[in-house]
Every structure is written in C-alpha cells, then in structure tokens.
C-alpha cells in the first residue's frame, strides 16, 4: 500500500499509536496524569518543546516527532492548550474506575465545571457522556478535563457541549 492509512482516514487508532511508540508505558499511565502527543507526522514546530514548564518534551531538529520524557511530565495540561495541531492530550488512569482526559476545546458554549457533555471519539462518533471537572484557558484555547468511564480513556478525544 502506498498511502498511509491515517492519511486516508484523517484519524489514528489506538493500535496505530501503540505500534508507532507514541503511547507511554502502562505503568506510567497508572501512576497519574501524563501527556500523549498524537502527532504522527514530522511537522516543523517547536511549540510543545518551548512551552512545557517541566521541560519534558524535546526535539533534536525542529521537524522531528516530539519525544516526551514520561518521568518528567507532570500532566499539567499546558501543552494541550498550546499545541497548534490540537494533538496533545493528558490521560489520568490513576483514579479507580474513572479516567480523566484533558483535551483542547475551541467552541462555544464554553464548558463549565460540572457540565455533562457529549463524548466524541477520534472519528466523531458519540461514545457516551462525561462530566467536566476542570477548565482553564491557554491563549484562548479551553483546556478541559473530563471524567469518563475508564474503558473510554483511549477513545475519547473531543467533547461537544449542547447549547
């Protein structure tokens, strides 16, 4: 096959992320919030590298894929708001049967803490409902943490707030 699947579909799957080595090891996922860069192409960009307050993200040349030092990453979520590709997410699997996903959101209405929102997966399918537990803005991008059933932690990548 000549064309890469992700370039045909416009989304990547969990298996593909794993196969490309873009996911943190499972032990790290269970420890607490950690960033994942769903950034599979070598884009010339240094935003996550220069923004990360823990200096956990690095690139040797500007177009390399970002490497995250999972031990240095605190899961603060700044990169989620900074990434121009809206490709950074923070996943927290350390809290029992619920998982917490921090994702970028740039639509109205603004999600508020406590809101129940629609959960969307990478291809836009509605996979359930979740509760917003935290919202902050970074350069006018809303960085939203949403509580989801644990089995959806690696599926949900967007929310939609009903008007």
């Amino acid at each position, binding site marked *: 096959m*000549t*064309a*890469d699947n*992700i*370039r*045909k*579909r*416009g*989304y*990547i799957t969990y298996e593909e992320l794993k196969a490309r080595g873009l996911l943190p090891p499972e032990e790290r996922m269970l420890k607490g919030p950690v960033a994942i860069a*769903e*950034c*599979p*192409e*070598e*884009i*010339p*960009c*240094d*935003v996550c590298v*220069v*923004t990360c307050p823990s200096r956990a993200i690095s690139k040797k*040349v*500007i*177009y390399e894929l970002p490497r995250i030092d999972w031990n240095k990453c605190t899961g603060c979520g700044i990169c989620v708001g*900074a*990434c*121009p*590709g*809206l*490709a950074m997410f923070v996943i927290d699997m350390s809290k029992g049967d619920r998982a917490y996903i921090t994702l970028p959101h*740039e*639509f*109205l209405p*603004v999600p508020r803490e406590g809101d129940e929102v629609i959960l*969307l*997966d*990478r*291809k*836009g*399918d509605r996979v359930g409902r979740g509760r917003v537990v935290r919202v902050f803005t970074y*350069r*006018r*991008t*809303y960085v939203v943490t949403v509580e989801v059933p644990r089995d959806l932690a690696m599926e949900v*990548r*967007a929310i*939609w707030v009903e008007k």
Partner: protein
Amino acid sequence: MPRDRRIWKHPIIDFKRGRKVRFFFEGKVVEAYEGETVAAALYAIGIDVLTWSPKLRRPRGPFCMIGKCSSCLMKINGVPNVRTCIEPVSEGLVVERQREIPPIPETSENRQVHVEELDVDLVIVGGGPAGLIAAMEACKRGLDVVLIDESPRIGGQLVKQTHKFFGSHEWFSGHRGFEIAELLSKKLASFKNLRILTRTTAYGIFKDNVVGAACFGSTPGNYTIRFRTCIISTGASENYLVFPGNDLPGVIGAGGAQTLMNVFGVRPGERALVVGAGNVGLIVSYQLLQAGVKVLAVVELMDEIGGWFVHAAKIRRYGIPILTRHTVKEAWGCERVEGATVVAVDEKYEPISGSERDYEVDALLLAVGLTPDNRLLAQAGAKMVWLPSAGGFVPLRTVFQETTLRNIFVAGDSSGIEEATTAMVEGAIAAITAVESVRGISKEDEKYRKRLLKFLWGEYRASPVVRRAAEAKKKALIDPEKLEEVVRG
C-alpha cells in the same frame, strides 16, 4: 430577504465593529458597521448577488474577498468596476450592481488626485507576512522604506488565520495568525523611516527603478516611487475549479470565506461543503464549525488527504467526513447555491457514474490551491519558470531572494506557494540583502542571514511534510554567480 449573517459570539475572535453607517444599495438604504467593506456588509445582510456578469448576466457573489478576482465589481458613487470586497463602507455611499461592461464615466466629480514623487531605499509591494517582516528588518537597519498594500489594512492573509502557527518560536509559533499581524503592525507603527500606503495598488515597475502606484478611496493619489531596491511580496490568488454552477453566489474561495467569517465576522452560509483536503480546506472546515456553520463533508480528488494529519484529525473528531477520491460534479441553485452533487472517481480520476450523491448546502467552498501573484515581476521582465508544484509561474531567484532584475527581490507566496513561516524568513533574507545593496552588509547581518538560510533550507524545509513546496522552491533557484549570465541572456 433581510437576514443577519453576522457572528456575534465567537470562541476565538472578538469582532470590533465600528459605528453604524448607512449607504445606498440599488436605491435602498442599508446599514453597515465601519470597518466592513461593501461586499462584506451586503453579504452580512443576506444580499447574495453583488453584481451581474457583463455578457450572460449571471449572478455574481463574493469569491476571493481580497481584491484579486472580479466577482464583486460594482459601481460606487458613479465609478464602475470598484472591487467592493476591499472598498470600505462609509456614510452615504451610492452602490449599484453592474449589468454590462460599464462605460467609463466622463466626469470624475472633480476629485482631486494627489500626485507625489517619492525617492526611497526600498519599496515593498504587499503587506503580508513576507512584506511586514521585510519592512521591519529594513527599517531596523535604517533604510527609508515605503510599504504598499491594496487592502484597507496591512497584515495580508495573517488577519484571517485564527489557528495557532506551527514553526519556530523565533517566528511566532504558538501565536494565532491575526495576533502576529497585530504584533507586526504595532511594531511597524514605531518606525519613522517607514511610510505605509494602504488601499494602494502598484500598477507597474518602470525603467530606471520606478514603481507606479495608485491610491483609491476618498483621497486618491498617484505615486511615482523611485527606488534603490524593491521587494515584491504580493502573495497569491485562489484557484477556481471547473464544474457547472461554479459561478453561483455561495461558491466561495476557502480563503474568501475565511475573510468573511474571521475578519468581518460574517457567516459564509449555514451548511457548507468544502472541496479540497489540503491544509486550507481542512483549516477552513474547522473554522466554519467554530463560526457555527454545519460542514457536511470535505471532498478530495486524490487518494489521500493532502494537508497535515493533525488538521484532518481536528475536524474528524467532530464528525466531519473527508471523502477521498471524490469531487464535485455540479452545483445548482437560483441566484445562490442551493446544493451540490458529489461524485466518486476511479483510479484515473474519472467520475464513476451512479456514485453521485446530492448535498443540500448554501455554501460551496473551493480549497483547490493557489496561484502566485507575481504579475509585476513578469511585467518588468523577470525571468519566470513554470513550476506546477510551486503553483504556476514563479520568478527565478537566488537564495538571497534576488530575481533576475537587479535589486528587485521576491518573497513569500508570490515566489511560489508555501506558507507564512517561510514567507517571513524569505522576507527577512530579502530585506537584509536589500540593505546590502544599498549600503553594504555588516558582519552581524552576514551572520544573521547565514543563520536564516540554515534555518530555512536546513531545518524547516527539511521536514518531510513540506517537501513538495520545498523542492519546488529549490527548482526556482539560480546561482548568484550565474545571475549575470542570465540577465544578459
């Protein structure tokens, strides 16, 4: 039917509308806000037909919204063929549709034309990312600079880019395009050695290093600008696509739609179909969603998405389908797009009959590439080369951005379609070389230019995701040593 297409709440942009003004459209009084252009203001209140084509009298709506096409030509205060997309509204304007090729008016209502001769170190044509950076670098180094732009305000297409920029932190990565335009405009306002002529069109480069420029508007002017160096950074225009109904109002360039919704806060439609899944098509789809427009699909002729994966992922997760190997077959409607037929194509890109699907949409956005706007250079006799991967004809140039015309440089999309970061870097390189031509180059500048060249060719353009554009730019290069030979023919 009066309606309000204005966006009053937006997640990213606070639209700053000026005071209300009233003007006449086809004899009726209509309202607008200061800061809007005539085409934007009319579209905002639901007027789809801005004018009629001169021969077949077909309805015409906005297309490019930046003064590069001829879709919005109207008569204003008796003057025909005014590009209403870049003509600001003002109290009491008399705006009329055209129905034929209009005669040239015999009286020009006694308008005084300001005539001025200027003599400068550097004239820059085009105030987008390349031109603004060039102006800044040249002004910092003390050159006398004139910057010309056709629009009412500088910034080029940065002003409608609401997404955060990739690239290097040394080149505003992480900032949204319109923020970069604001930052640079503010910076330029502090230079006393810079004169900015907005609403001004450079109409030719003449013998003995003279640019002719005409200023439109309430204080029309004609400028004869003698220059020591010149940078052409005139950008690009959007491509059309051939299909029945492609001229209906509501068929809008993707960039034109961005100008409407992100600069003027006017929704291009309610339900949209986007043609072309390059970065522009993907980004405009996301922005439509932000503006509250439903995007039914993005259709792409090729086997795969042309733009960057992350831009595609951004719209897929909100459920916008991207149909590869599909194209638009026709659009239909009466004085406005009411729908479009999409068809699948086979491996030879021929339509597969029976695969047609109809979409009810009132906006059909074309994101099918750009063509460099470098007519000034061609007119002046610069050696051009045909490079489809750069978007069409582009001027031969050295790595220092000098064309085959001595002391005339090119930067940004007018030198081949790429994007804003490279446009800015090219602008900087051109400006430093212009400084070198005027009065020699300092050690620091030589070092700086070397660093810029290394970043541009060795780092940024080394990325696989920009390879096509980078290779095209490489093909347009000419060895500075050989320049002399080429110039002499």
